[in-house]
């Protein structure tokens, strides 16, 4: 069986933070290739560079060095990266994001929160999938509710729906169960797994939760900005 196309590729990317006079190498010459349909968990101790790597792969940040290509497009090479506006255009075409906190707009209903991305950008006919997406995530009876009326698991599912409403190729999840109890965490894990298996959605997951990481097809462990 032929391998899927590489959608994100890095070659010796680095990211260095400056804390006063001190330099912290958050990512240290890391090379990785993510293929379409992958479900990759990134684990490691705190400060190992997991979130930094996810942000670089998701074009939320520019690396300091190395080469990064996404969907065949060169994002960064030899210290030259794209502007914020160019990165935004790539993000809205390719990526969906979920975070530990849900960042739903509290005065908008579930449906309105999910539709927010359309206000800024809408892929052609994307609205046709919204109802089936909400059904798939078990939110069809919660569309008129405000976030304050939902459980943590439901709020994260709304955040997932919002991330997927524009049919991204890659879903980036940064500690998506960090605010949830174990039952809700498993619920979110099952949702992610189903999206990967049934929809073929590429998922990059950063987590401390090893049970959740176990649901991924592959796991990489980071330590001091390197894959170990």
């Amino acid at each position, binding site marked *: 069986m032929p391998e899927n196309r590489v959608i994100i590729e890095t070659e010796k990317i680095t990211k260095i933070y400056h804390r006063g006079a001190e330099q912290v190498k958050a990512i240290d010459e890391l090379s990785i290739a993510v293929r379409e349909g992958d479900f990759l968990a990134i684990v490691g101790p705190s400060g190992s560079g997991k979130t930094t790597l996810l942000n670089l792969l998701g074009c939320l940040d520019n690396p300091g060095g190395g080469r990064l290509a996404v969907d065949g497009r060169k994002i960064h090479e030899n210290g030259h990266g794209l502007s*914020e506006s160019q990165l935004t255009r790539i993000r809205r075409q390719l990526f969906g994001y979920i975070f530990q906190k849900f960042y739903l707009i509290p005065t908008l209903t579930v449906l309105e929160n999910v539709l927010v991305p359309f206000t800024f950008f809408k892929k052609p006919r994307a609205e046709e999938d919204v109802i089936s997406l909400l059904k798939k995530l078990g939110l069809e009876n919660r569309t008129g509710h405000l976030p304050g009326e939902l459980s943590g698991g439901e709020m994260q599912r709304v955040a997932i729906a919002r991330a997927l409403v524009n049919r991204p190729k890659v879903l980036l999840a940064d500690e998506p169960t960090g605010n949830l109890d174990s039952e809700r965490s498993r619920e979110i894990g099952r949702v992610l797994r189903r999206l990967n298996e049934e929809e073929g959605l590429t998922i990059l997951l950063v987590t401390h939760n090893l049970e959740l990481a176990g649901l991924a097809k592959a796991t990489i462990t980071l330590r001091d900005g390197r894959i170990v």
Partner: protein
Amino acid sequence: MNEPKKISLFHIAWKNLSRKKTRSLLTVVGIALATWVLISLFGFNSGYKNSLDRDIDNLGFQMLVVAKGCPYEAATLMLKGGTGLKYMNEEVVKLIVREPEVESVTPMLMQVVFDPNKGQSGGLTAFLGIDPATFPSLKPGLSFKQGGWFTDPEALEVVMGYEAAELEQREVGDMYFIPEKEIELKVVGVLSRSGTQDDGTIFIPLKTLQKLFDQPDQLTSVGVKVNKEADLARFEEKMFQLPDVQVVSLTQVKTTIMTLLSTARVLVFSIALIAILISIMGVINTVLMSVMERQKEIGILKAMGALAADVFKLVWVETSLLCLLGGLTGAGLAVLTSRLTEYLIRQLLPFSPSGGLISIDAGLILVSIAAVVLLGLVSGIYPAFRAARMRPLEAIRSEEE
């Protein structure tokens, strides 16, 4: 399930503002008050001028000759009557009429008494002594609700303006008692409402008034109607040659009164300007706080694909909504309270013409609201710029820092 549809930027902005209802409401109230002051002020500006023009047009003569004295008093006397009256001898009429520019003249005597029964603690009542032979012809616009002019130039009779008759509850045939003079005059006419100062005037034949108040041959003013082709400047110059009198022309009166008002207007304009500046600061503060509180959300919006311009627009729309709401509320307030504002202004001003003092029309409302929204848009630039230039990652991390 509701059918999904795109939600508008306005909807998101509105919902954002509704998160902190009290803060948004207070900001709207601030803008509304500034708008209210602005509209009332401009409404007063045009209303006062229009009413003054109308009053002057209704005077029936273009010039008033009065005894030398303060020009402001003269202007007030011309329009409303007043205390501190200065007198000139009737002989002056002969000097005026011999000028070729003069078409007709009407001598007048203003007298004022204290009426202890007027209002709660008494008040002044003014009487205008007029010449029945010349005054009516100079005032063709005056019509009678009841009765007519005096039966004799020395009759003990009064003609009451519409409001004066209403206030005193007098009709033709009733007697009118003059306080201080202990004399009763017969009401022979009640004028129809004219919308001018004549409505509040009590007219008495000139000769009668001179006798009653022991001012024989004395006048306080002479109304002068000049020929259409007359050179007004030259005529005024000639009148100034007459001893102990001065000429007040309509143009002068307008200028004098508007000059009197201009100082007050500058003060009120300054207050309005300060009110607007304060409300703009309020808008900037509200929107900036709202932006800072929502940094993470803005970061998420940008992560989801919102461009800097989209975020700028969102914050700008929020600012515009605040200003539009404030502007509309302020305009409504200005219209609803215009009568009350007018009443208060009348209490404060030494002279105010009859008729509406505040004229608020659709044009003024639209221009004022547009100005407030425009100012709001300007004040929204900084918060919108702050929000737009946030980098998504920094915004998302912001609270942890």
